[in-house]
């Protein structure tokens, strides 16, 4: 069965520092991969997605993620965080295996706190 693991429930960084949020998935093929962000008191918004091609994908607000198939990982990165990046970040993988293109498998989320 497909699964998504975000090993860090909470990450705290200082403003201006670099950031990596980890995501690992289990899937035998090449999945569709997503990062969504949830700002306080809001719904989730898409940050970026990967289907194929260049393994480094660019997203909004300076975020990027790298697909490493050999490691089954899709870590999210940002070179310099801002206090407004404080949010919960969710990694998700497509549920193609179950023959249903309607679903995503979600990680539990990583809460990012950026200290000013």
């Amino acid at each position, binding site marked *: 069965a497909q699964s998504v693991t975000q090993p860090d429930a909470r990450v705290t960084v200082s403003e201006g520092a670099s950031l990596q949020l980890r995501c690992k998935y289990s899937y035998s093929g090449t999945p569709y991969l997503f990062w969504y962000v949830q700002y306080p008191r809001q719904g*989730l918004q898409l940050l970026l997605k990967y289907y194929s091609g260049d393994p480094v994908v660019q997203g909004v607000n300076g975020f990027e993620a790298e697909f490493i198939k050999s490691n089954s990982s899709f870590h999210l990165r940002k070179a310099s965080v801002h206090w407004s990046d404080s949010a919960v970040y*969710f990694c998700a993988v497509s*549920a193609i295996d179950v023959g249903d293109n309607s679903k995503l498998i979600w990680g539990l989320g990583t809460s990012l706190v950026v200290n000013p």
Partner: protein
Amino acid sequence: EAAVTQSPRNKVTVTGGNVTLSCRQTNSHNYMYWYRQDTGHGLRLIHYSYGAGNLQIGDVPDGYKATRTTQEDFFLLLELASPSQTSLYFCASSDLGASQNTLYFGAGTRLSVL
């Protein structure tokens, strides 16, 4: 930009109460979803639909009914609410299946069952 509107934003009910959560999307998306979000569980899919009159069972459907009355409107019904259904509920829509396409989320409904 796709717009998904949920109502109410907050709801308090008692055990055994009857609750309806509403969701409307204005971009003619085919797929609509109901999720619940709980600490330690992330997002869990309750029900979804790929068109008016269609309903698909999600991963945690027990205690919930849903109905898609039009392309735009998707309702979640809790007919005998229980404290275990206290949660933050999100509606989302996508043009095609979520596995390959962007999901657009509403702002959520916070439900408390006392």
